[in-house]
């Protein structure tokens, strides 16, 4: 045997730079729009300019006369396919038929009406202007509360009340809690509609091989396998005749956790014309037609004792659903209800959810999906209760936290929190921020007439989606680990990433288990022809569920490696570590590469062992995980203009064990940036007629690098027993924690004026008006 060197370097826990970054930052990655095929045609979609209208006539002949236009399809051509699927179910849920192209009516601005297929993308776009549609505009309603008023225009004529569903959940004795309370605080809190704004818009390429009767769809998606199942159904195609590929995906934030009309449509078009077809979403379309997030009007009531004990929480949640249910639309507000207890001990909860149709693009999962809305409300209400009884917002939180010895903790909403040490996280954040000193500074600032605020949010999350019984379409994940004959390692993961860095983190797991170098590991994903069925990346699940699947696949693989090692070493006592198998008796070793080669050569198989070194594992998580943390934000409001300055941002997050701190911080940074977007800048504004008036990045403000403050990150580490890696997940933490911390801080700044609450976004004019009026809204 050759001399082998045992690798002792470990990768888990280290700040390893992302393996995927070189191709991303040098422009050499392959996104959907980079795919070129011989004979490729291009699609453009004509969309409704009206929020509600009857389609009286569509004239396509002028477009069809152009030699470059190959076909135009309208609603009547697609009657056999679809509908756009909704994967969520609730008792009594009203599900409007969601045709892939509008039939006799349009329901929101951007509703697809016709698809043009042309030789090139320029002609396709031009041809949209040659199609004439006669619309009879109808009254529209864009505000969910107005939609509930009697006499409001009916979004779907068959349901004049505009109610898609109601959902009730209750625990404890709410009426008693409120009757016994010293203090009850009520507040209407809006979580405004947001536009996810992934850097890469959506795009689809569809390629039909008529001889093979097989269709390949390339789509910028978070869920290639689920898409394959659902699009195959929509097209009436056997699932094994459809391959879905998610190439490089440039961000999703939940907006690509969906199946859209365009994926079905392009499949249909490719099969009709027998040529590859490409459709790339414009930014305008992305704003108008890709799902929006949030869209809550929440009426909260909190009951408490004068000593700060929280007794109960009531919520009437009005969810703006938009005109249709996309994949998970109606399920999102139910996550808000699950999250209602936050990380506090109170047991009395009542939630009424009303899902309301509006003439707007559907809402669905957007980073946090229901949990930021809930956390924003809870953290605002806790602060308002504290203000009402004159208690420090940190103190009221310490008083009400679920205690470390109470885990696993059964929440009144039916969850079992795995582990937590909430006070420690808050203490750490207070220490990093210098909380008590900040309060002194604030006193001084107030004496000088400055509007100086300190805001806390202590959040919990439901992550690592999730146990299959509680997750639509299943919540497990798959992984295959393959040691190739040369000893290089290939990992196939079903948790198809869209920027999270699984290629790096999963490789780190492999390195430590197999003792290989990080450059010897390739993580592949996103192609249903290559990767066993998987669920996808969303709900802070990729590492906690997908990574765990990799871990279990590795354990099985290691057993097999040892068997081959034992055979090669002719020993019955071997161990495997650091990339070598060692005979515990003789000390002789054999390397992984040698074992791999032997396993494929198969000249001498260990008894009862198949050739090759491949292991596949489908891991079903027994529970969600429940990360938590504490963010503290210091703000100052310009008294003259109402402008908010973030002076400090402290983020202490506990996501359990960490594979790569660099990536965890990156997730926190990105999450916080998006939370700041909601808190300070972003709002999708529909006017009374259902026109999206923030229809471009010229008007819809997402935070730019220069608008994001320095974020002081720190961590506590409370592992979860839910998975053997102890990992909880971190993708959504920053977003969930941020908005209430910022709003609490600004409300604190303006509290000397009597301000109790401000709805997001905290745009300067809103604050200026409050300051002008001495705090009276």
């Amino acid at each position, binding site marked *: 045997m050759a001399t082998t060197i045992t690798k002792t370097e470990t990768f888990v826990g280290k700040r390893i730079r992302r393996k995927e970054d070189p191709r991303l930052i040098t422009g050499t990655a392959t996104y959907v729009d980079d795919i070129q095929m011989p004979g490729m045609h291009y699609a453009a979609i004509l969309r409704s300019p009206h929020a509600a209208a009857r389609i009286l006539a569509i004239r396509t002949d002028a477009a069809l006369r152009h030699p470059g236009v190959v076909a135009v399809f309208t609603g009547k051509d697609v009657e056999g396919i679809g509908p756009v699927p909704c994967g969520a179910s609730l008792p009594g849920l009203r599900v409007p038929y969601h045709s892939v192209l509008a039939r006799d009516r349009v329901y929101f*601005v951007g509703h697809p009406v016709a698809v043009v297929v042309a030789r090139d993308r320029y002609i396709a776009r031009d041809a949209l202007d040659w199609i004439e549609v006669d619309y009879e505009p109808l009254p529209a309603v864009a505000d969910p509360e107005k939609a509930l008023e009697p006499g409001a225009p009916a979004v779907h004529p068959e349901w004049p009340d505009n109610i898609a569903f109601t959902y009730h959940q209750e625990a404890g004795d709410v009426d008693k809690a409120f009757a016994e309370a010293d203090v009850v605080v009520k507040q209407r809190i809006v979580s405004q509609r947001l536009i996810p704004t992934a850097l890469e818009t959506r795009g689809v390429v569809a390629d039909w091989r008529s001889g093979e009767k097989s269709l390949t769809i390339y789509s910028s998606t978070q869920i290639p396998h689920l898409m394959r199942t659902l699009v195959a159904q929509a097209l009436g195609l056997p699932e094994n005749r459809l391959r879905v590929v998610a190439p490089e995906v440039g961000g999703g934030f939940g907006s690509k956790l969906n199946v859209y009309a365009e994926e079905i449509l392009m499949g249909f078009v490719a099969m009709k014309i027998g040529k590859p077809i490409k459709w790339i979403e414009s930014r*305008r379309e992305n*704003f108008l037609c890709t799902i929006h997030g949030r869209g809550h009007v929440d009426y909260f009531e909190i009951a408490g004792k004068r000593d700060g004990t929280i007794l109960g929480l009531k919520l009437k949640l009005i969810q703006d659903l938009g005109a249709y249910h996309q994949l998970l639309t109606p399920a999102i507000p139910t996550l808000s209800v699950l999250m209602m207890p936050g990380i506090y001990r109170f047991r009395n909860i009542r939630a009424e959810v009303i899902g309301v149709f509006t003439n707007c693009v559907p809402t669905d999962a957007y980073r946090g999906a229901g949990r930021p809305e809930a956390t924003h409300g809870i953290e605002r209400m806790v602060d308002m209760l504290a203000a009402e009884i004159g208690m420090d917002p940190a103190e009221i939180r310490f008083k009400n936290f679920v205690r470390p010895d109470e885990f696993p903790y059964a929440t009144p909403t039916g969850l079992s929190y795995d582990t937590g040490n909430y006070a420690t996280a808050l203490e750490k954040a207070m220490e990093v921020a210098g909380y008590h000193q900040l309060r002194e500074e604030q006193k001084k600032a107030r004496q000088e007439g400055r509007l100086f605020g300190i805001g806390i949010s202590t959040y919990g999350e439901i992550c690592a989606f999730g146990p299959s019984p509680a997750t639509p379409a299943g919540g497990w994940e798959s992984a295959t680990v393959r040691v190739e004959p040369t000893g290089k390692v290939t990992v196939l993961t079903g948790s198809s990433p869209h920027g999270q860095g699984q290629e790096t983190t999963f490789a780190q797991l492999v390195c430590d288990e197999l003792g290989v170098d990080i450059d010897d590991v390739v993580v592949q994903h996103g192609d249903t022809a290559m990767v066993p069925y998987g669920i996808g990346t969303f709900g802070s699940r990729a590492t906690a569920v997908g990574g765990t699947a990799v871990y279990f696949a590795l354990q099985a693989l290691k057993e097999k490696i040892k068997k081959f090692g034992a055979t090669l070493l002719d020993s019955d006592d071997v161990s495997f570590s650091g990339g070598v198998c060692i005979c515990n008796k003789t000390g002789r070793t054999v390397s992984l590469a040698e074992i791999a080669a032997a396993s494929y050569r198969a000249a001498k198989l260990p008894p009862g062992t198949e050739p090759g070194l491949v292991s596949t594992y489908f891991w079903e998580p027994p529970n969600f995980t429940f990360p938590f943390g504490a963010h503290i934000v210091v703000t100052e409001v310009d008294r003259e203009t109402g402008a908010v300055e973030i002076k400090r941002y402290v983020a202490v997050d506990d996501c359990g064990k960490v594979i790569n701190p660099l990536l965890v911080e990156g997730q926190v940074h990105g999450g916080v940036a998006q939370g700041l977007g909601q808190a300070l800048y972003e709002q999708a504004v529909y006017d009374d007629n259902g026109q999206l*008036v923030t*229809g471009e990045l010229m*008007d819809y403000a997402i935070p730019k690098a220069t608008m994001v403050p320095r974020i002081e990150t720190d961590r506590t580490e409370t592992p979860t027993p839910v998975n053997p890696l102890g990992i909880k997940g971190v993708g959504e933490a920053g977003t969930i924690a941020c908005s209430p911390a910022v709003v609490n801080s600004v409300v604190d700044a303006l509290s000397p004026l009597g301000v109790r609450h401000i709805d997001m976004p905290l745009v300067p004019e809103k604050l200026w008006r409050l300051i002008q009026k001495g705090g009276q809204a």
Partner: protein
Amino acid sequence: MKISGSYTLPAAPERTYALLQDPEALAASMPGCRELVRTAEDEYEMKMNVVISSIQGLFAGKIRVADKEFPARFRLLVEGDGKIGFLKGEGVLTLSPADGATEVHYDGEVQVGGMIAGVGQRLLDATAKYLIKRFFEKMAARVEQPS
């Protein structure tokens, strides 16, 4: 979008009232108006090519005059539709004598849809004011011509 303002035209209310409803005067004063055809009593169809520097839009539309109270007030209903969007507006014009001239006060609301609503909101207000101003300036120039 609410629109209101006033402009003084150098003619008595009676003549101003007539001019503001005169198809020829309207056609000549409306920015970019290419064609104005009377289709019924107090109803017109028009084609406009609105140009503001680089921005350009072809619109086909209708104008209707209603609630006429000579020479004090009337209601104007306008709708237009083009590739870059559509608009629908309604407003009341009130005419009051002012030293031999007429102060025309307008007060109305305009709905805008399509591309111009989605991407134009930063400049809609200023642009609407500009177009109205241009209309009245041209009208004023016309008023000053002997009838």
